């Protein structure tokens, strides 16, 4: 049976077909749908871990126990898990262990571009890369087989374009892979990495890479495609080495040139590459992000070009590949080059913004009003840096904001330091940072923006929601007691829709000595239970003076009316009934009482 599947859906299917017993990860675009889909297969076990390092340790444990296992994360999550990646490389496994790492060339939704293939080389584990959904599915089983054959974790690297593109996939049956062990191995010489044991493993790991190089020579996903025109002994003018989605662009842009497509990008097969190179006049590499294959080929002593032609920064596409090739004369300058610089008026930007009714908006409105400096974190609230709120001043990585605020306070910056962090991000990497604030005591104000979900990636569950990935009930970790247990004495929970309360508490915190934590708790307005309480607020046009205070909160539901205020000659506000959910933040900030509160609207409807 064939089915249209995204790369992520295909990886999930592949894991199920390959009899993965335990899967774990942490949500992160563009990888999130893999675990969500896998969790839906019959008898599959999948869990959201608090962070990627924990997820990797969980699946390492399952693989030590002789059951096939899969960890899923985005590229920056792999950074978090990297410590575990290295010990797992040293120890090897009892049953197959695959780590799905999804890179984001072009930074569609990430804080950086990074090339995770380097983790393959860095941690001395094989890295394989699919070029479409079919391979994404099939390569999960391939990775697990390699893992078992060579006693190593395997990195299956995808990218946004593979993960979020859909193509036809041939579905297979689920295979049954019996556990390799009945009891957990008592084998510290292999699974205990104290130097007395792990020194002996060092040479085993290096030898493993040598064996994998040999394996790669005949690995069926390392494909040489000669075109019909150049089957003779005559050397082809141009030969292309490529991998991942770039293979598809190469096929489209260079239909006549021979291609070596590497399905295993670490380690590369030396003899195969040499042989291919010897049959072409000019060897080029088309790959996204780093010159990874280019460097590996250079190390074999083979002349090759890559990043001198194609960009290192951003996502590739057929047009970029074609234009880059044309600029260096690899392709003739095309007469029918499409319109590229269309003369057109500026198109208004649609920057991502906090949604109407977002519980974070009121908090940032107050932070903006109090002109506080705010260290941010990873989540929807990172959008508060944009005008008109402009109330967020740093963003690093998961959990970074609290440490940054603490450090600035210790440096004697002389103004109150605030850190904001979401609930899921707090569980992920905020706990040790807040523990540090309690331990080393600084006047930092930490605001936990608790919207009861991992909202930005699509409302996934987390330890505070009371449900697991597979919607089993679980104990909901209560934030206020957790924060107190970490040693923070001044903790207050507030409803962020009560903007005046937020302001009052923050003003108290600013006067206090020592650390304070505000838990701003209200579920994301897009969650089903919140939707049930949606109410549309109204502006009384006779009271609105066109002062634009309500525009300063950056709510997409507040529009400029066609009607101008007679005195100020500025447009009055009007509320878009299709967007407003009734959070009242605009009503709180309106100095003229022109915007109704919920009870006024509901009252009016009752009459």
């Amino acid at each position, binding site marked *: 049976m064939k089915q249209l599947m995204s790369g992520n859906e295909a990886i999930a299917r592949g894991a199920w077909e390959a009899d993965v017993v335990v899967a774990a990860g942490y949500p992160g675009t563009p990888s999130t749908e893999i675990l969500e889909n896998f969790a839906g297969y019959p008898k599959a076990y999948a869990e959201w871990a608090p962070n990627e390092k924990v997820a990797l340790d969980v699946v390492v444990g399952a693989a030590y126990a002789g059951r096939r296992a899969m960890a899923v994360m985005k590229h920056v999550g792999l950074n978090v898990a990297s410590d575990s990646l290295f010990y797992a490389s040293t120890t090897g496994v009892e049953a197959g262990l695959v780590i799905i790492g999804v890179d984001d060339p072009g930074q569609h939704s990430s804080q950086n571009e990074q090339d995770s293939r380097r983790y393959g080389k860095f941690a001395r584990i094989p890295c394989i890369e699919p070029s479409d959904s079919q391979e994404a599915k099939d390569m999960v089983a391939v990775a697990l087989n390699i893992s078992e054959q060579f006693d190593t974790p395997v990195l299956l690297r995808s990218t946004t374009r593979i993960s979020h593109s859909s193509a*036809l996939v041939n579905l297979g049956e689920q295979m049954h892979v019996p556990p390799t062990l009945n009891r957990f191995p008592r084998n510290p010489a292999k699974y205990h990495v104290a130097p007395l044991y792990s020194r002996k493993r060092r040479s085993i790991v290096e030898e493993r890479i040598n064996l994998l190089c040999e394996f790669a020579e005949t690995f069926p996903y390392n494909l040489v495609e000669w075109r019909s025109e150049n089957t003779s002994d005559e050397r082809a003018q141009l030969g292309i080495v490529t991998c991942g989605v770039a293979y598809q662009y190469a096929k489209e842009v260079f239909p006549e040139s021979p291609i070596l497509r590497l399905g295993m990008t670490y380690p590369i097969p030396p003899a195969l590459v040499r042989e291919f190179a010897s049959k072409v006049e000019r060897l080029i590499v088309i790959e996204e992000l780093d010159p990874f294959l280019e460097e590996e080929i250079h190390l074999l002593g083979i002349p090759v070009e890559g990043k001198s032609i194609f960009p290192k920064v951003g996502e590739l596409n057929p047009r970029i590949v074609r234009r880059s090739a044309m600029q260096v004369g690899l392709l003739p300058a095309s007469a029918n080059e499409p319109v590229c610089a269309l003369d057109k008026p500026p198109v*208004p930007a649609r920057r991502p913004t906090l949604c109407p009714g977002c519980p974070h908006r009121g908090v940032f409105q107050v932070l903006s009003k109090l002109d506080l400096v705010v260290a941010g974190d990873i989540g*929807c609230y990172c959008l508060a840096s944009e005008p008109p709120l402009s109330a967020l001043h740093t963003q690093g990585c998961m959990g970074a904001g609290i440490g940054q605020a603490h450090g600035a306070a210790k440096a004697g910056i002389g103004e109150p330091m605030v850190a904001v962090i979401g609930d899921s991000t707090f569980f992920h990497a905020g706990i040790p940072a807040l523990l540090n604030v309690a331990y080393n005591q600084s006047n930092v104000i930490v605001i936990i923006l608790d919207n009861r979900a991992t909202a930005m990636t699509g409302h996934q569950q987390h330890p505070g929601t009371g449900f697991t990935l597979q919607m089993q009930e679980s104990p909901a970790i209560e934030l206020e007691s957790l924060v107190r247990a970490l040693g923070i004495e001044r903790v207050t929970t507030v409803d962020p829709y009560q903007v005046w309360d937020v302001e009052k508490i923050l003003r108290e915190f600013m006067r206090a000595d020592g650390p304070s934590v505000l838990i701003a708790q209200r579920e994301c307005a897009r969650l089903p239970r919140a939707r049930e309480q949606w109410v549309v607020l109204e502006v009384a046009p006779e009271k609105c003076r066109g002062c634009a205070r309500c525009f300063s909160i950056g709510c997409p539901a507040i529009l400029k009316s066609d009607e101008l205020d007679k005195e100020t000659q500025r447009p009055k506000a009007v509320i878009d009934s299709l967007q407003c959910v009734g959070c009242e933040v605009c009503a709180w900030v309106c100095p003229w009482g022109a915007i109704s509160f919920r009870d006024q609207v509901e009252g009016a409807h009752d009459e």
Partner: protein
Amino acid sequence: MSSDTTRTYDFLLAGIGGQGTILASNVLAEVGLAVGFDAKKAEVHGLSQLGGSVNTHVRWNYERVYSPLIALGEADYLVAFEKAEALRYAEFLRLGGKAIINDQVVLPLTVTSGGEAYPTDEQVKAVYAKLSDDVHFVPGIQIAKELGNAKVANVVALGALSNFLPAPKKVWLAVIEACVPQKFVELNQQAFQRGRKVSAEW
């Protein structure tokens, strides 16, 4: 109805989060597969907040589709579900390609509370006039509202597109049935038929 088996059919669909751009591209890709093409679909969007710009690439080819992305200036068909988005992605349309633009305006925050201007219909038309004389505005939102649900404007536009593709109506209706939740099937099929009627007169 053209059915040249040597050409590719490259579609760019542009809209904003919540307009059903991805659903429309799912239907389009499935219809292509159902009538015997190879098909690929790529979703291009950034952070998943409401109201962001979303575009999808759908490609059909009788032999094999390689790249999931269409190159700039190479879309045979451009379907925009919102007028500013039509302007944003205009460069994707090949010279002489067909553009179907849903007559809907969704003001971005940069216009409602910022200083940026929303393009006029004349500006959108002038830009497209440089690319093609096969450019059509569809009253998708009006038809959708007549049907009782503004959200099916995307399927009205898809209906308008369907008249120009080598796939019979019954295939479209069956794919729509398979792609949308049961209780919305009839509504979506009606929207599709209304869109088909609109473009029958072009």
